[in-house]
């Protein structure tokens, strides 16, 4: 039983995933993208397999050690109709968008859909 749990844990979060963190100096939510860290949620690189997820996690640790980001972690996503990753959990979805009470603030304002 314990082995089963350990194996499940070793597999990490349910794929596909993206890598979210905060910029150390600004605090902004950042995503690991094809060209490194980006503030644009739509530019987040999506890992569909465990190998890519492990690579991204290692990039997260490297970004932390290099004092670029803090609190990097993988977030399970679903791919929406437009092909963009949307976090499966409402908390992480909030981080991708910004405060629900302020559509004029956060990612939803900085990177509006259709822009």
């Amino acid at each position, binding site marked *: 039983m314990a082995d089963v749990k350990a194996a499940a844990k070793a597999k990490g979060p349910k794929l596909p995933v993206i890598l979210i963190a*905060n910029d*150390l*100096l*600004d*605090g*902004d*939510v950042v995503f690991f993208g094809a060209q490194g860290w980006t503030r644009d949620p739509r530019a987040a690189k999506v890992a569909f397999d465990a190998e890519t997820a492990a690579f991204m996690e290692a990039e997260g640790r490297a970004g*932390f050690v290099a*004092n670029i980001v*803090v*609190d990097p972690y993988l977030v399970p996503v679903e791919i929406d109709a437009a092909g963009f990753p949307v976090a499966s*959990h*409402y*908390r992480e979805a*909030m*981080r991708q968008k*910004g*405060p*629900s*009470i*302020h559509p004029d*603030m*956060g990612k939803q304002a900085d990177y509006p859909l259709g822009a």
Partner: protein
Amino acid sequence: MYRYDEFDERFVRERVAQFRHQVERRLDGSLSDDEFKPLRLKNGLYLQLHAYMLRVAIPYGTLNARQLRQLAHIATRFDKGYAHFTTRQNLQYNWPKLKDVPEILDLLADVEMHCIQTSGNCIRNVTSDQFAGVAKDEVEDPRPTGELIRQWSSLHPEFAWLPRKFKIAVTGAEHDRAAIKVHDIGLRVLRHAETGEVGYEVIVGGGLGRTPMIGKVIRDFLPKGELLAYLEAVMRVYNAEGRRDNKYKARVKILVHETGPEEFIRRVEAEYAQLNGPTINAPEDEVERIAAYFAPPPYEALPEDSAILDAARRADPALDRFVEQNGFAHKQPGYVALTVSLKPIGGVPGDMSDAQMLAFADIAERWSFDELRVTHSQNLVLPHVRQDDVPAVFAALQAAGLATANAGLVTDIIACPGLDYCALATARSIPIAQGIARTFADEARQREIGPLPIKISGCINACGHHHVGAIGILGLEKAGVENYQITVGGDATENAALGERLGPGIDAEDVPGAIEAIVDVYLKERQSGEVFIETVRRAGLEPFKAGFQAFIASDEGARTLAAEPAQ
């Protein structure tokens, strides 16, 4: 109000330099992230869901116009043009950048403000009664005690690494507006029954959060001059013996609970007996020096009632409602204290724009002896307004969008920032408050319902004080969806009580309807003159449970019908 002397000024400047240095050492690798985190928290800096958040201390909730203007300026320059007043009389910026924080601290120091110990496992910013110095039922103004504690607790060498955070509240009045029974230490200024000497009743071990508890009286009477030595004894016992193995059991309330109040008292008194009081306590001169800053402002000698205000109220029903609802009786004849609601219907509880801050600073400066207060229900107060001036003040508040006449009513809702901002939250709070406020927007209906404190927290940590809301709402996660538990019967006053759950958790969209169902039970059950909490106390929880359950049943019925395919 208190003004910094050269010592306070230098202390705060040096604290800014220290923090600037700490940021530099975090960036150059001297401090690890794990080491920097408690250091930044002790200076009020969190990393939240979208950004850093900076919490500014407003000791015992007192501000002047110059300070509020500076807070507005910081909001404009370093944030998104607004700030948020919290349930602990502090102010939060939601979007500052780490690299700007030292400069923000400089600007705060320019107006005798700081962020010292607004977070972290240390003694937090001290809170008090928003009507301190105003209320008729006051033995003594609690703010000099608050200021003494602010100074004594600031960068305390021994109590900077406590098992957990530690919150102290002080009231000087009979009616408790500072929620002293739900703080780690609550102090009530009182007069000794026989000697008439002024001292404190000391309450320890109250708190909300995961394990809500009402504090226990550990000293019926502590002579005023012995305060700091006694606090040192309590803090030392807690620092040495509070649990550090489990952060959910680390607050002093758990120590008091697990050792038992009698044994806890014995340990505190044993420690206190070993202290050399005169070497620890504030010199009497110093206590008097601080108290002098809180002397009453130069009031005019006026009759009790104002003919000007009476006439204006007769002519303007909106003004009349405002004074009726938001006015608070002042001990000085001819004056009134006005609660200024930060709860407009559909607004974010406690939020204020930079423009509103500037307008309000002008109002406080012109009409309230340059003084304003922050309340733990996330509103502001103009503490000393001439009744003759109230019509002009009301007009100015209206122009600034600050004249909502709902103080204490069902739409004056306390809500923590919740999942819209907070990294710890499990559910949103603000949209729930907005939904309820819109449901009860009608002013006549609000007045018919009367005083009804609703308090909403977005997680078990209870920053929204839901346990002590007459109606409390706690947002949790259930199966990947936000889910809300409703409690009834909580009370933060001298009759402190914890609310009890009415039934299972419900979805966000059902909360306003559930609150309406609960309010309907009250309206049906109440006897003449009873406010909501009194009806709950008299009638018990059962009718409210029944009303809540009936709502759920009918709501589910309605949903099932709605889900039926059209024939």
